[in-house]
Each structure stands twice: as C-alpha cells, then as structure tokens.
C-alpha cells in the first residue's frame, strides 16, 4: 500500500510581486514628510485670516519668524530674544540679499512685539516682510 505524501503538495511562499509597490509607497511617504518639516516649531500660533493676500513666489528667499500665543519668538531652529533678531537677520541678509521675512504671528498677539521685531528688522535692513495669513473663507 502506498500513501501520497501530504506535505509536498502545498506551496509555502509569500508572493513578492507587490514588494516594489510597498517600497515605493514608503519612499514617497518619507519624501513627503521630510520636506515638510524642515524646522521644528516650538511655539503655538494661529494665523490671522485675510482676503487680499498674495502668494510668495520664491520660496527660497523666505526666512521665517514665529511669534507664539505666549509671546515667545522663534527664529530658525530656536527661540530667541527680540534683541538678538537684528544680528541673526543681518547675517542672513548678507548671505541672501533680497530675503523676504515671513512673520508668522499668532493672531491674539499684541502689536508691541510685532513693532519691536519690525524695528529690529529695519536695523538689519531686512525690509521686505510678509504678514503670514490664511485666506478668509
């Protein structure tokens, strides 16, 4: 009497045909997520809304200053005091003469801090600014 072997008849492979898809997907995801977060923003802010807004065409020229709802100021990667803004921005302007400073200021802030930053920017000759705002629905 002869019995058929059971084990040999079953294939035990996981298909690898979709492996490229998965890899591409992961790659795309990392590409997208890494370009978006260039700097960590430590302050919390909510932008004001406006109607007559324009797009900044040249993203390369932009340098950001954040002002949070607690009045802290962030420039580049770290929090700074207002009187340090001038030196940092002056250096930046030498590297990039027509820099546009985008002010991302929380909408509940007071004008005092904005005026102080503007004065610092004027001293550093960074005269092109942009009040970051969202489009009003």
């Amino acid at each position, binding site marked *: *009497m*002869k*019995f*058929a072997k*059971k084990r040999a*008849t*079953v*294939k*035990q*492979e996981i*298909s690898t*045909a*979709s492996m490229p*898809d*998965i890899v*591409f*997907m992961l790659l*795309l*995801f990392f590409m*997208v*997520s890494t370009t*978006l977060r260039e700097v960590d923003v430590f302050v919390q802010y909510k932008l*004001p809304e*406006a*109607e*007559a*807004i*324009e*797009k*900044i065409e040249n*993203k390369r020229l*932009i340098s950001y200053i954040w002002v949070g709802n607690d009045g802290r100021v962030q420039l580049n990667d770290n929090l700074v005091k207002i009187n340090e803004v001038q030196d940092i921005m002056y250096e930046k302007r030498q590297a990039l003469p027509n820099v*546009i400073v*985008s*002010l991302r*200021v*929380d*909408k*509940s*802030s*007071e*004008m*005092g801090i*904005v*005026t102080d930053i503007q*004065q610092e*920017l*004027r*001293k550093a*000759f*960074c*005269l*092109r*600014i*942009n*009040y*970051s*705002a*969202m*489009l009003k629905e």
Partner: protein
Amino acid sequence: MVKLKKGGIRTAEIPSSSMADIAFLLLLFFLVSTVIDVDTGIGMNLPEYVPIEEQELVPLSKDRLASLLINENGDVLLDKNVIAVPQIKKVLIPRIESKIDLPKNKKLVVSVKTDRKTNYNLYIQAIDQVKGAYADVKEAYAKANWGKDILEISEDQKNELKEKIPIIISIAEPEKIK
C-alpha cells in the same frame, strides 16, 4: 486495491493582485491628509531705519494722507473719524481713484499707526482692507482700460498699473513709551 487520497491539491497563496490597490490607497491617504503649507500673506515693505536724531519731517498735504489709527480697545480712526474696519475699503476706494491721473508725488499715502497693546488680528484686518481697496481699484482700472482681467494683462500694462496706482502704505514710526 484502494488508493487513499485526501482532497485535491491545495495551494496556500495570499492573493497579491490587490496589493497595489492597497498601496495606492495608503499613498492617497497620506497625500490628502498632509497639509502642505502654502506661503500666503500680506506683503509689505518696511521703511529704512533712521535714528531718531536724523529723522526729518517731510510735510505731507492733508489731501494726500489717509491716516489710520488703531488703539488698544479696537477703535479705528480714519482721518479723525471713527470707522468700522469693514468700512475702510469703501472709504478709501474713491480717494485712490481720484488720484490715478495725478503725478507720482501726489498719490495717496496710507499711514497706519497702532498702539503697543493693539490686537495683531485687528491690525491685519485693517491692512487687509487697505490692500483690498487697492486691489479693487487696480482691477477696475484694468477692466476699464484694457477690458481684461488683472491676471491676464501684459508685463507693460502691469508696470503702467504699478505707476498709476502705487501702493504706498507707511507704517508709522513707533513712539517712545510715555
């Protein structure tokens, strides 16, 4: 003799034809859910910094100047009249239009002055109104003279528009704290 056989040949494969669909679904999900921040905002040019001792006062005729004052309580004053923020645009449009044909040194100057305690959002709303007034005048001018939308005009026409209707917004020099 009886041959014993247990069922047919079974293959235990995971179907992989739908894998691509799943991958695309995930990709789409990430594409939709990530917020790509667009840099939009109100562009301004700051005046050059001049130390207080060297500042000169340039007389400006009353007719040319539209002074906008915003205090800490949220009251807005346009040329000494109390005004609501959404009204600013309406008041400014005829004033800008009346100066289209005047020479360069007679154009309207909008001066914006705030207190240190003024709310930033209110300031942006006011600036937005001023910018909106200029945008409306420009659009009307383009429509009337060339019959075109402002986005369709040529480079030369753009320059003409810039010359005829320059946006002059002056951010007032902050005063020393009293």
